[in-house]
């Protein structure tokens, strides 16, 4: 199985490196857009999928990251300072947003984060002196890297791809460390986790803060990708869409955001050109989500696990039957 996974990863890496060369400018732009959403939803997957915190305010961090870079660059600050500033600011704000999660859970937490998203969105829309309001901020430049311009779509794509891979590796390392198990313990059973010495308070706050930092970086990359930002992409609807991407891909599955962001970003654009489907995309998408929640509430990537679990349950049942006569031994 591991060999299969490595082979799949090699094919995917080759495709990501080669495919843009065969695409037109818009196709490359779309792939970059997808990568940006992968980064954002990787962060949300940590908060929601691994740590089990119901957050509906992720687009606010995405927006804070985008506006931080845009405002700083307009003030003459380098993108290379704006990017870490966006990540740090989102980390700090995410830490603060984590505090309500220490008191409320589930749907109540979702509403608290939704309220936060609305407040940030209103700030972006109303504080025209800072954000440009509904007129937004335009002509956001793309950076240079060691004298190499990232202005072109292809160059910027490879830059975003490199950042995505780097952040994925960082998250992979974090999830394989004891922190990963602590986040999962927090999600599965916080009372038991605390009785084992896992600080529910610390890990809850960190899950929000790290998830927010990922969204902040994604937002910063987004600002330079689209080169014009206004409040609409950072509204509550965008948070719900990001949440949906995590759920569709598989919350708590490392590759879930890759699949979920593809469903949320690539598929609609692809279907836009399919005759007879384009007008029906959203109703079809909604219906597909309903079906998915009924049959696969743990997302598309849970399919292999479900098959494996059924096989193991059958084997365990057979083993228990065989050992039933063995009195005194724990089967």
């Amino acid at each position: 199985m591991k060999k299969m996974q490595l082979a799949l990863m090699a094919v995917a890496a080759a495709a990501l490196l080669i495919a843009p060369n065969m695409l037109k400018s818009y196709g490359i732009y779309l792939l970059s857009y997808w990568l940006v959403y992968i980064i954002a939803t990787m962060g949300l997957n940590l908060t929601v999928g691994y740590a089990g915190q119901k957050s509906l305010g992720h687009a606010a961090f995405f927006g804070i990251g985008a506006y931080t870079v845009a405002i700083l660059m307009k003030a003459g600050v380098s993108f290379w300072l704006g990017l870490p500033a966006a990540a740090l600011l989102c980390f700090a704000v995410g830490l603060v947003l984590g505090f309500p999660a220490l008191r409320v859970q589930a749907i109540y937490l979702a509403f608290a984060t939704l309220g936060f998203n609305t407040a940030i969105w209103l700030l972006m829309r109303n504080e025209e002196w800072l954000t440009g309001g509904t007129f937004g901020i335009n002509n956001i430049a793309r950076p240079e890297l060691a004298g190499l311009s990232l202005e072109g779509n292809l160059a910027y794509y490879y830059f975003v791809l490199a950042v995505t891979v780097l952040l994925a590796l960082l998250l992979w390392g974090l999830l394989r460390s004891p922190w990963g198990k602590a986040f999962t313990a927090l999600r599965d059973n916080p009372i038991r986790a605390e009785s084992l010495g896992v600080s529910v308070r610390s890990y809850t706050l960190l899950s929000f803060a790290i998830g927010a930092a990922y969204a902040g970086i994604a937002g910063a990359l987004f600002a330079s990708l689209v080169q014009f930002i206004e409040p609409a992409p950072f509204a509550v609807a965008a948070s719900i869409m990001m949440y949906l991407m995590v759920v569709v891909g598989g919350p708590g599955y490392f590759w879930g955001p890759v699949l979920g962001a593809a469903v949320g970003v690539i598929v609609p654009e692809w279907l836009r050109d399919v005759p007879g489907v384009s007008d029906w995309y959203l109703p079809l998408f909604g219906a597909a989500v309903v079906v998915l929640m009924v049959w696969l509430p743990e997302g598309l990537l849970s399919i292999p696990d479900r098959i494996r679990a059924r096989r193991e349950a059958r084997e365990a049942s057979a083993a228990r039957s065989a050992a039933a006569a063995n009195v005194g031994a724990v089967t």
Partner: protein
Amino acid sequence: MSTALLRVTDLKKSYGAIQAVGGVSFEVRPGEIFGVIGPNGSGKTTLFNSMLGQITPDSGRIELKGDDVTKLGPLALNRRGVGRTFQTLQVFGKMTVRENLIVAAQEHHGTMWSRMFAPGDSGLGPKADALIDQFRIRHVADKKAGTLSYGQQKLVDIGMAFMSDPDLVLLDEPCAGVNPSLVGGLSSLLKELNQTRKGSFVVIEHNMDFVMDLCHRIMVMVEGRVMAIGTPAEIRGNKQVLDAYLGN
């Protein structure tokens, strides 16, 4: 002045007009298995939750190794060497058995920041394997805990409480839901753990045969108060206890 590991003094807790625990005092000695029995509504669970920091008593004092821990929460108590099991299964179903055991002790190693860079098993793999062997669950060590039988999950649940080498383990109805044919094995395992790990246990249990076989001393609670404390033989011979709880 005393060698008690845990000392509870005049503990009281009321819910409105109902006094769940009304001035309970006892002590648990190092290495002792101490049983708490009593009919439903006798205050055992309230007492347990107070000792575990889940609720704050109205008055009284709880000391662990001489330190006042009356107002500490579950996290602080765990860090001070108190482990526990729950009446219902509380394993992490999506983790393997080995991962369940590792997560049960990882927070006792290093600092939060050092754990971010630590290996996934926090160096606890060999210790988890030793416990897996002691609990005779080697054949399911790499299976997800949620896929195991109830009896196997119960063993994992109990094993988790022992992974951090606690000084005191509070076991809340360890026999609940366990097949009667396996209760004897569970008692032997707990005795073995008591011998090898030198820890003290407090056990709440309704299975009288199990309690009488396992515990060094037993406290009988009735209506929030202590009716008797003594060895299993003394409790069995206590007329007041026989009349009020055990029967003939």
